[in-house]
């Protein structure tokens, strides 16, 4: 297991270096240099320009600049925002819990519904139910999620306000404005619960419903399809036939004997969906004004706040690499055949 771990880690390091190169070159590929970008439309005094260039180390050779960038990045110093002048890493840390909270709820929704739908479709193979589940999941897979978000807003907040105002869902933010919750963990659900204010938890939860559904739609479709095909494979296995022949109840055969083994590839896919969640978060957070990492990145691009764009991309990519590594290791741990394969 240890050598497997080392081998995987050895593959990750060049990828990480590549990511830092990518993030580093980003700021050098934009037309004009960072000082000109900072100055915007203003005219630059040549002496001041040269001085700033020197202060930021931008007049050194590129390889030296990259070395300094990498060294600082490893110490979590990702520069500071042009706009707020706050450190990129500390800004990220403030916003990250919101993204994690949303991603967690979305993944929970996608996994629960996706697994159930996939299992149902597999055991009712060829029926209307199967075709229905597969049709809906292909639709979910093809969904432009930003539009899906707008549709949900149209139905569950705008139309619902006229039909049943009590059930209308809020369209933006993490909690109603009337609540002033002190951030303790950064996770609004937990903070609202801890605050003990009446209605705060309910408000936080209601703010999560639509964003979670929107962000979870594509993962849901992927999980449902994957579960179905994996289940169909497993249901053909001899040990399932044996279990049936022993006279076990159909539910026990499906959920205890088959599902457990069918889950292995599904778990891997769920791990790999983390990247999709991060990408989808950009759109979902924009629609629902969710103050997370995705919205932060898009706003930074709009404001040409390049240190934030650079840092955000480096952090997101590193997150994806780390999660994929964990999934890989977990998979190797569950399934020794992977570990010993060349």
């Amino acid at each position, binding site marked *: 297991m240890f050598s497997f771990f080392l081998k995987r880690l050895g593959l990750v390091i060049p990828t990480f270096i*590549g990511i830092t190169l990518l993030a580093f070159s980003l700021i050098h590929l934009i037309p004009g240099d960072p000082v000109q970008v900072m100055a915007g439309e203003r005219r630059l005094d040549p002496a001041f320009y040269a001085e700033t260039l020197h202060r930021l180390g931008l007049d050194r050779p590129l390889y030296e600049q990259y070395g300094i960038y990498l060294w600082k990045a490893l110490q979590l110093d990702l520069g500071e925002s042009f706009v707020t002048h706050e450190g990129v890493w500390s800004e990220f840390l403030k916003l990250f819990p919101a993204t994690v909270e949303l991603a967690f709820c979305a993944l929970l929704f996608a996994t629960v519904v996706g697994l159930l739908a996939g299992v149902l479709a597999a055991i009712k193979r060829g029926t209307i139910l199967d075709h229905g589940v597969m049709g809906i999941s292909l639709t979910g897979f093809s969904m432009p999620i930003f*539009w899906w978000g707008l549709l949900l807003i149209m139905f569950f907040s705008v139309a619902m306000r006229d039909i049943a105002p009590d059930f209308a869902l809020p369209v933006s933010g993490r909690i109603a404005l009337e609540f002033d919750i002190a951030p303790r963990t950064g996770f609004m659900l937990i903070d609202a619960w801890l605050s003990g204010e009446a209605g705060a938890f309910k408000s936080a939860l209601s703010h999560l419903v639509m964003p979670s559904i929107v962000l979870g739609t594509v993962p849901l479709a992927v999980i449902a399809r994957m579960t179905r095909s994996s289940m169909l494979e497993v249901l053909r296995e001899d040990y399932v036939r044996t279990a049936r022949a022993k006279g076990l109840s159909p539910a026990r055969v499906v959920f205890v004997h088959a599902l457990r083994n069918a889950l292995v590839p599904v778990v891997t896919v769920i791990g790999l969906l983390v990247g999709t969640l991060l*990408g989808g978060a950009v759109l979902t957070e924009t629609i629902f004004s969710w103050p997370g990492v995705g919205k932060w990145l898009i706003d930074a691009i709009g404001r040409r706040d390049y240190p934030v764009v650079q840092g955000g991309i480096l952090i997101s990519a*590193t997150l994806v690499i780390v999660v994929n590594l964990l999934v890989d290791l977990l998979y190797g741990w569950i399934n020794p055949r992977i570990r010993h394969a060349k």
Partner: protein
Amino acid sequence: MPNSQLPSDAAKQGTVLNAVSSRADEPLAPLPSGLGDFWRSFSSNKGALLGLVFFVIVVLCALLADVLAPYSPIEQYRDALLTPPFWGAGTSRFWLGTDDIGRDMLSRLLHGARLSLSIGLVAVTLSMLPGIALGLLAAFFPDKLGTVILRLMDVMLALPSLLLAIAVVAVLGPGLVNTMLAIALVSIPGYVRLVRASAMSELAKDYVIASRLAGAGTFRLMFDTVLPNCMAPVIVTATLGFSDAILTAAALGFLGLGAQPPMPEWGTMLASARDYIERANWVVTLPGLAILSTVLAINLMGDGLRDALDPRLKKLS
């Protein structure tokens, strides 16, 4: 059919061909015609047929947009802002209504089809060709070049494709052409890995070794011998890449990073639609419906293609 002549020819020639003739004497099964087989398998999938029909309609709309569209997609009718469609309180002047500055929705959607399909076509071409070349190189020279190529692709795959596309657009600047380039760039790794994997498994087969022994050069081996046998999964991936490109382009347009107004790109049309969600739902629903149905049609086709072209994958689904 050259096969049918084998027995008589072989009889005249020496012992070597006799071996062949003894096999060829057995009744020959009719050669499976590739296209016919493909069509039989594809058309047995109702969803795929439906997707194909819808896709053909979208293509026709795109090609004939100038003829079909009643108005120019950017002409503003200031006397008819936010006119509802005909099923609402609208008139037959604007079948699908108008948007917030009085542009005809139907004309914009038709011209939008042209934009979306071009984005898909360009992005797929620009990602598939370099992807195939790099994939073949990685398979034929697995030691140094292959490792470098694969590591490079790993870097690109580490970022979620939408984020990478956003990063590329952030560098190049927003716009339609840059959107296509960004999407093409982020789709390359998929093809590289796919082509490399299938080329590697082909390389070990007898027919490749035979043609190598017969003196075929590397270039010929790559593109003439191996590549045709790797194309089935590439075509399937290209189909899905096409729908993915349309979705990503629409997402970039929605975020204000893709095609810029007043271009009637479907995602760009939705960017400002949020403000009209309470007053004019057709401004919101119609462009999204266009994106969803086009993407769904292509994905349905992709499923059918996969089943028809690659029987190995069929078992899995």
